[in-house]
């Protein structure tokens, strides 16, 4: 069995936007209750993650280890809340577990742990490593004659790690066209603007020069995300990098494009205000 959406056009867009809204609400409530976590980078990746899970990915939440499933790797592991929300909404994990984020004994810790959570392909949290592992999984798929795709989301700050570029070279060398990477390009990292700290620009030219097919999009425009994923899935002979321009904290006005919301959770008042903006009037009922 595989989960696939049959929707098209505006209906598809609306469906994916609804999923993204659900994820945003969950991210806020999850981190709000936990009292710590990374809302900013979770919210910037939300639309991309929603499109991956409900449009692109061939998967079956009842069989997390199904051999032919597409793999999704959240290389920027600190955005765990976006992944947990997607895993809950697709049915890999129980929704109630979301509210135990970071508690002693919970399966959901600050970074995704494959030992604990069904649907987490690899444990991430140490930045820069997901892409190389994605390359290995993509190569294995080719060797095993399985036609799955490997999706991975990396951060723009994360792209400062040397290992990213080592993997970039590898993927192109092996022509891993079953590998689709997406950069969550929000121009923020912990210390400030990526462009001020250590500019990764011109990042699309860099990936191109490394032998990748590059697609630049607005990472909050669902139609553009879907079109980019379509193009990426059809492309032959090269790995694909989708450069998604995003806004950190997207969807919550007081979090948008603010470095302060990288690794700080909303307090109760802020959580309630954020959920109101996301259309939840009574947070206890969400």
């Amino acid at each position, binding site marked *: 069995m595989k989960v696939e959406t049959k929707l098209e056009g505006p209906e598809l867009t609306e469906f994916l936007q609804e999923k993204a809204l659900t994820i945003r609400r969950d991210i806020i409530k999850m981190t709000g209750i936990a009292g710590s976590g990374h809302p900013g980078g979770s919210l910037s990746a939300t639309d991309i993650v929603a499109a991956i899970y409900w449009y692109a990915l061939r998967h079956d939440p009842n069989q997390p280890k199904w051999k032919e499933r597409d793999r999704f790797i959240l290389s920027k592991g600190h955005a765990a809340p976006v992944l947990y929300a997607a895993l809950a909404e697709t049915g890999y994990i129980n929704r109630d577990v979301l509210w135990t984020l970071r508690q002693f004994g919970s399966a959901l*810790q600050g970074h995704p742990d494959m030992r*604990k959570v069904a649907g987490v392909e690899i444990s991430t949290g140490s930045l820069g490593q997901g892409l190389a592992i994605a390359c290995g999984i993509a190569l294995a798929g080719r060797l095993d004659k399985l036609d799955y795709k490997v999706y991975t989301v990396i951060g723009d*700050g994360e792209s*400062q790690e040397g290992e990213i570029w080592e993997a970039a070279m590898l993927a192109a060398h092996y022509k891993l066209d079953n590998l689709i990477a997406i950069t969550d390009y929000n121009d923020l*990292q912990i210390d400030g603007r990526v462009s001020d700290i*250590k500019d990764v620009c011109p990042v699309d030219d860099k990936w191109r020069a490394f032998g990748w097919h590059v697609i630049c999009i607005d990472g909050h425009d669902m139609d553009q995300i879907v079109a980019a994923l379509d193009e990426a899935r059809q492309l032959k002979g090269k790995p694909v990098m989708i450069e998604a321009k995003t806004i950190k904290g997207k969807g919550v006005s007081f979090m948008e494009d603010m470095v302060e919301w990288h690794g700080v959770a909303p307090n109760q008042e802020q959580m309630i205000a954020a959920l109101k903006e996301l259309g939840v009037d009574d947070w206890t009922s969400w």
Partner: protein
Amino acid sequence: MRRTCLNMVYELAKTDERIFFVGSDIGFGTLDEFKADFPGRFFVEGVSEANVIGLAAGLALEGKIVYTNTIATFITRRCFEQVALDLCLHNVNVRLIGNGGGLVYAPLGPTHQAIEDIAIFRALPRMAIVAPADAEEMKRLMPLTVDYPGPIYIRLAKGGDPVVTDPGMSFRIGKAFVMRRGKDALIVTTGMMLKAALDAADKLAQDGLKAAVLHMPTVKPLDTSVLLDLAEKAPIIVTVEEHSIIGGLGSAVAEAVAEANFDSVKRFKRIGIPDVFPNKYGSQAGLLTHFGIDTETIVSVIRQLNKRPSGQLATERN
């Protein structure tokens, strides 16, 4: 403790032009004053730990004294090769300040728990390893790091830990401090576990058991003369650390004591994190209790060892 440490770097930089700071995505606003006052000696290099170590080595080879700072796992494991060769082999004056030594970042999981940092750095020739017990001790340590020859790893505990050392105490890199004297047992500890060790000694005193407490803020070079002097007289030796039982303080003490070949029999136990990746999250305190790295465990281990003449103790949990 972290704030004290970084503020001291800034204070020291005011009077010493050789002092540089290189951070690696350490936290928005960290050391803004340093950046404003000495922009030419302040760098934040993004998420690129291996590169940071190389950069620091290059600066240090040209006579600078370079303080670097990021999360402990990323300044130890992530760039181990660069630390070994660029820093230790070249014996350069780079100071690695690791945030969250031990289980401080408990809710962030295994990627952020620095539980083997001491072990891997102990294996590197020339690397000094210092884990102060509190912010006051940090203040005494930092001025000495300026002219210490060769690389130093400074292991930070959590912020806001209680002050347990006496502000009047002296400090020297490589020196151990006898915090309590007692003939019945010896508790050896490093970093912020000193508090648990002292509390355990107090509790044991109520049973009439007199435990000495040796605080070893420097794990390498190990102050074997003080250690062995106390160890020789102690029938029971227990080590306590917020670190894997493999390769850390407990191992260092075991090696020294075993090779001292004392005539008298020693009963020995390492208290620390067993040989596992922690598979529970939550608070640092929760995990320390989970692994039995606390006052109660120290007390019960020493009581048991006091009763049992020989053999292994089954107290490990995971």
